[in-house]
């Protein structure tokens, strides 16, 4: 039983990270039907910004979190402006290849400036270094932090999307671009805003991973990016609560597989899930099965 609880605790931490990344995939897909392969590298950049802030500039966690989110927001907006906007009317495959190009560009530019070496976040001190024991279940302060920050960001996101003017514009553009334009919605800036939101969340995920796992490297985004993408598909791509749910489910499954002693298969299982969903329920858990298939 303790074992089980412990796995769930660990799974929630990992799942939070996947969920934060998956949200960016799903929102961008929802609005321009593009699988933004560069998104996982925005997350990586977020981890590096956090590293620079905490290890080099000696900033605390929260200012570093804000810095990561801010830099990633800008990066996301710039990527959209430079790489994707000119391709708005191009075929989907063109945009997809461009996204892969942007992804490689970010990875190797980071390697150029920061080297391919693994970097380690400074050890946490004070409260952040604490662990709490409940029976045999160990929860670290970092895990609490990850779970809390993720939930707060998700609530904020939901508020933005459901209640604000720009959030309504986002949903309108996702549903029907022409009709949105006829309402007087500025479609370009709405798309830009969507990239900004998704990238900010990826930035948060990046620094949280840095704090949690300590080590970062320029290719660190690739695998979590793919898994977050699986999470987005699992929940129903384009559907925000779907990405949240998918993130947690994938995170928990992965930890369980590892916990059962099949650590070698933890990645394979996630991709097996992807294949399974695409066969059984291509629109995802929360999707309507009439929707567009990925």
């Amino acid at each position, binding site marked *: 039983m303790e074992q089980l609880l412990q796995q769930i605790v660990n799974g929630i931490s990992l799942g939070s990270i996947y969920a934060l990344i998956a949200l960016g995939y799903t929102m961008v897909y929802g609005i321009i039907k593009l699988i933004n392969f560069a998104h996982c590298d925005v997350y990586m950049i977020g981890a590096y910004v956090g590293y620079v802030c905490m290890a080099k500039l000696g900033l605390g966690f929260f200012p570093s979190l804000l810095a990561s989110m801010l830099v990633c927001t800008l990066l996301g907006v710039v990527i959209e402006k430079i790489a994707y906007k000119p391709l708005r009317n191009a075929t989907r495959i063109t945009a997809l290849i461009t996204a892969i190009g942007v992804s490689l560009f970010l990875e190797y530019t980071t390697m150029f400036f920061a080297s391919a070496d693994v970097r380690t976040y400074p050890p946490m001190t004070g409260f952040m270094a604490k662990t709490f024991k409940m029976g045999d279940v160990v929860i670290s302060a970092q895990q609490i932090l990850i779970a809390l920050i993720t939930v707060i960001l998700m609530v904020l996101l939901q508020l933005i999307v459901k209640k604000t003017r720009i959030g309504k514009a986002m949903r*309108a553009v996702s549903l029907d671009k*022409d009709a949105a*334009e006829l*309402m007087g919605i500025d479609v370009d800036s709405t798309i830009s805003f969507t990239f900004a939101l998704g990238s900010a969340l990826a930035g948060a995920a990046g620094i949280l991973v840095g704090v949690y796992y300590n080590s970062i490297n320029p290719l660190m985004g690739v695998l979590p990016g793919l898994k977050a993408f699986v999470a987005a598909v699992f929940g129903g791509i384009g559907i925000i609560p779907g990405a949240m749910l998918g993130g947690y489910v994938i995170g928990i499954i992965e930890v369980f597989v590892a916990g059962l002693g099949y650590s070698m298969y933890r990645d394979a299982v996630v991709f097996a899930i992807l294949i399974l969903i695409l066969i059984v329920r291509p629109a995802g858990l929360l999707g309507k099965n009439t929707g567009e298939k990925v």
Partner: protein
Amino acid sequence: MLEVRNLHVHFGVIHALKGISLTVNDGEIVTLIGANGAGKTTTLRTISGLKKPTSGEIILDGVDITNASAQERVRIGISHVPEGRRVFSNMTVLENLELGAYLRKDKEEIAKDLKKVFDLFPVLADRRKQLAGTLSGGEQQMLAIGRALMSRPKILLLDEPSMGLAPLLVQEIFNIIKDVNSNGTTVLLVEQNARMALQIAHRAYVIETGRIVLSGTGAELMESEEIKKAYLGG
């Protein structure tokens, strides 16, 4: 109010509009009728800014808006109910209507207009919390019209509002268009249902493969032999 001068529109090599000119005066209902593929939808989409013309001019109240964005055109009073209704299916009726007032800041006036729309379409008031995609075809058409009215337009562009509706509903929609017009909104109505359109229109234009081939008052065109043959079933 609205003047379109010598409008040409291309889709790649397809020359869809070949010099369309038309005028809509303040307070009028003007209808544009024509067969499938004649260019009716393209005309409206070009007027509302969804499609850029190759050449020609669009003038609203003396101001050249040919190069204005769609957003700008909504702001200065053009509202377009697109072909096929295009309501935001995954949003509620109320959210759809609120989006119609997206560019407006005058909260109290918006609330008044919302009430007006609900008076015009009581069924929408009952279903304000319902997702637009779950409405019937007729209700969706009402929502699309209501949503367009929420921007408080000077001119309302309607693209085949009767499409796919039962005769009784068609009559209701046309009555509403007349109502809206008599409350001061100018209307440019695209229709395949020529008989109904000509009945309520002050003036009409006939479009054939991208050209205006005939124009006159609604009554005149109703009597025209050509029109009877081609559009009114003899």
